[in-house]
């Protein structure tokens, strides 16, 4: 859990995510409550785990051809196919070698990364939403029997969370990194063919392609949950403002007018439109979840349409 902060000697110390946790009242009990809430949602919505697979058989029907008992399709035999799946009855009828295909039964792999940069926890609503999503992912994994691995990431490192810590909510955010940079997703040991869930606010000045390249490493599929707050999207800055970056500690004096605020909002929208385009181009579902409203409503409204979650069957 220990992380070495990247020193920025010229700037004052920044607020740590841990202190924000304490400030927002995110105790273990509180997070346990969020977990209970997430587990109540999991029966209605689930993660699209079908693409995530492991070498071990599992209880999920995979997207590919497998050894389950559930018939999926016929196709022409090609040399090298497993002869055990030849449809002899069809051969008897038609004289053609036809393969019977059954759905694969998988035990999905789920790698979830929680961005622990200070910006994620700056506002209580946004921080709560991030933790709700984190809990929801856990709940979905638990319900689906997926092989879950969770990581806490900051710009310098990614730390795996032991499962017992995860279940007991006995984990703490990382110390401040003192710089504004994306989480170190390249340090995450992604498992092959795993479903990668990244919970991050995407507020870092790095091209989306660079981030997504790390996420999609080793033939994986990814979903990005992006919590956001109204305060960051539509700030009430007016007149003389002294702005301080919560991560780098950089201070700046700015004079704001309505026109300048509008220019900022346009820049904000443009930043996320770039992310939308990049994710769409790489088949990554990007769900931006606002801080307002219950998590279920928020997922239904923002995550379901983009395929970041799906309706649970039955």
């Amino acid at each position: 859990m220990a992380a070495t902060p990247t020193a920025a000697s010229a700037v004052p110390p920044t607020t740590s995510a841990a202190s924000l946790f304490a400030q927002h009242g995110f105790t273990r009990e509180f997070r346990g409550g969020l977990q209970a809430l997430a587990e109540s949602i999991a029966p209605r919505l689930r993660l699209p785990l079908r693409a995530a697979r492991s070498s071990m058989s599992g209880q999920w029907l995979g997207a590919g051809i497998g050894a389950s008992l559930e018939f999926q399709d016929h196709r022409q035999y090609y040399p090298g196919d497993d002869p055990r799946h030849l449809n002899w009855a069809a051969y008897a009828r038609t004289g053609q070698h036809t393969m019977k295909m059954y759905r694969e039964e998988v035990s999905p792999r789920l790698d979830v990364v929680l961005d622990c940069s200070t910006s994620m926890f700056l506002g209580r609503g946004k921080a709560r939403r991030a933790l709700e999503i984190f809990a929801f992912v856990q709940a979905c994994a638990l319900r689906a029997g997926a092989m879950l691995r969770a990581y806490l990431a900051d710009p310098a490192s990614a730390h795996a969370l032991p499962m017992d810590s995860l279940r007991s909510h006995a984990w703490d955010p990382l110390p401040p990194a003192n710089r504004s940079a994306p989480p170190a997703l390249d340090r995450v040991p992604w498992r092959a063919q795993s479903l990668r869930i990244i919970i991050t606010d995407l507020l870092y000045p790095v091209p989306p392609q660079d981030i997504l390249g790390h996420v999609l490493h080793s033939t994986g599929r990814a979903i990005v949950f992006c919590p956001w707050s109204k305060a960051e999207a539509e700030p009430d800055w007016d007149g003389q403002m002294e702005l301080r970056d919560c991560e780098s500690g950089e201070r700046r004096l700015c004079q704001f007018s309505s026109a300048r605020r509008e220019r900022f909002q346009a820049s904000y929208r443009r930043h996320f439109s770039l992310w939308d385009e990049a994710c769409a181009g790489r088949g990554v579902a990007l769900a931006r979840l606002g801080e307002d409203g219950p998590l279920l409503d928020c997922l239904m409204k923002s995550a379901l349409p983009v395929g970041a979650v799906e309706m649970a069957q039955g």
Partner: protein
Amino acid sequence: MHLIFANPAGWFALLGIPALVIIHLLQRQSRRVEISTMFLLEKQEVESRAGRRIERWRSSRLFWLQVAAMVLLSWLLSEPRWVEGGTLQRVAMVLDSSLAMEAFRSQTQKGIAADSATLARGAARTEWLLLESDNTRPPLYHGENRAEMLAALDQWRASLGPHDPAPALRAARVSVGDKGLVFFITYRPPPNGPLPVEAQPLAYAHALDNVGISAAGVELQNNQPVWHVLVCNQSNTMQKRAWWIESGPQKSAAQTLELQPGETLALQGAFPPNTERMTFALEPDGFTLDDRAPMVLPLPKQLAVAFRGPDDFIPYVKPIAQLIDNIAPAAEGTMPDLLFDLGDDPGFTPAAVARVHFSEENAATSTDDVHAHPAPEKHPLMDALNWSGLLYHPLKPLPRRKGDTTLMWDGVFPLITLNEEIGRGPTLIFNFDPRHSNASHLPAFVLLVNRFAEMARQGKAAYERNNFPAGLPISLVVPRDAREVKLEAPPPDAPAGAAPVAQDLPLASAGATRAPSPPEFFTVTVDGRPWVAGASQFPDPRESDFRDAREIPLRASAQVTREAAHSQPDLLAPVWLLALLGALLASWRETAPRLK
């Protein structure tokens, strides 16, 4: 066409801009916010990274809107007007000829130079008329050249005591017409309320603590000449001054006076022996004209008096004549200056003689009637004389003659008449016999005779030595055959005691010669002979009271009333007004979200 501002004081609204800057600086207390989107801001507003002051001002729309509103407000308040080409305005400046103006001479010149420059902007061309309130003097300047007008102003000297400026102001109004501007350049607010003919007062003065000589003269006491002086403290504080006597090159030891506010102190002393001139001098202060009183030992013109009439007339009239100052019996065979006579017919008086004629009551004209309560006329000779106790026997009315002025009436007939027929000597005619009246017991009778004698003395062409009020006529009478009259006096700007400079006086107007100002000794010569040896003295203590002196600036409101004829208001004024309202609304819109 050029631009003028009818209300330049409107530009004082620009002082609101520094106030705005201060208010915005005080509001510089920034709101501090911790954010997570600094990198987005960086892309957007790189230039404000350092929070530099100029950038802060530049980016404050509210500030610039308020500055624009201030500028527009100042513009509108200053009432800009466009002066059309070819317009002509007439401006008359009437200079107060009061001697007090000399205390503020340089300030007045500078003030007029500045204000005339302002006034000149009121029209494309300005016709200047520079006058004195002493309306006996010609205009100092009349023309369109402001520099020449100012040069003429440099030559101007105030020389009068208290006087009424109204005639000069009316003359100025007539000259510039209804649309012209008339200014009265003085040193205090007009004491009698608003000036006539819509003249505007202008003053470039300030209050002074002045101590000066209110009056000075020489009298005979026990046949010894004694000078006497009144020194007055015309201020609201106690004042100390040194004083001394100058007589030729000699100067007495200085002594110190201490005067309470408003106090007048009388000083006197023996006139220095073996000299005809002396000067009482005070330590100079802010107003120096009343700090020196030159005095000469008076030597009035002597009147040669003769009497003609019955034997009992001369003893009657002689005591009355002897009450007249400085007379002597006329020599046998010479023409007297003043003749007392009694007879039936007044006849005619020779040109060089003044005559007091009494009608004679004889047996033919005698009557027992006694008349009283004659009706006096208004005349300088009769001023304030009480004739109510006069008793006399009425005589036959005298026929009216050319040059008669009735001084007193007995019913419908003249009782006392003054005849001033041109070419003849003045005659005071009493149409009653004084021997059969109580006239000799009436002060009015004696005073009238004395006044007439003084009139005769003034009209006599003879040498005179006297003290005169500065700037006032000295009643100079020169011989009929005089060819050259000169006034010798130090130049106005010369220091005290400077050598006199001779100045030719035109013969025709020699009678209107005035005592020179500032106060100094002077001499009038006729054909090289001394004719008047005089000392001019500060004329009126009212002219040395500067307690209510103050500045009266050019009233822009009065100016624009006149300028309206020469200029047009700014046609874009409604546009500027709308722009001002727009700026105010926009700044309110900028402020409203913050207030929420």
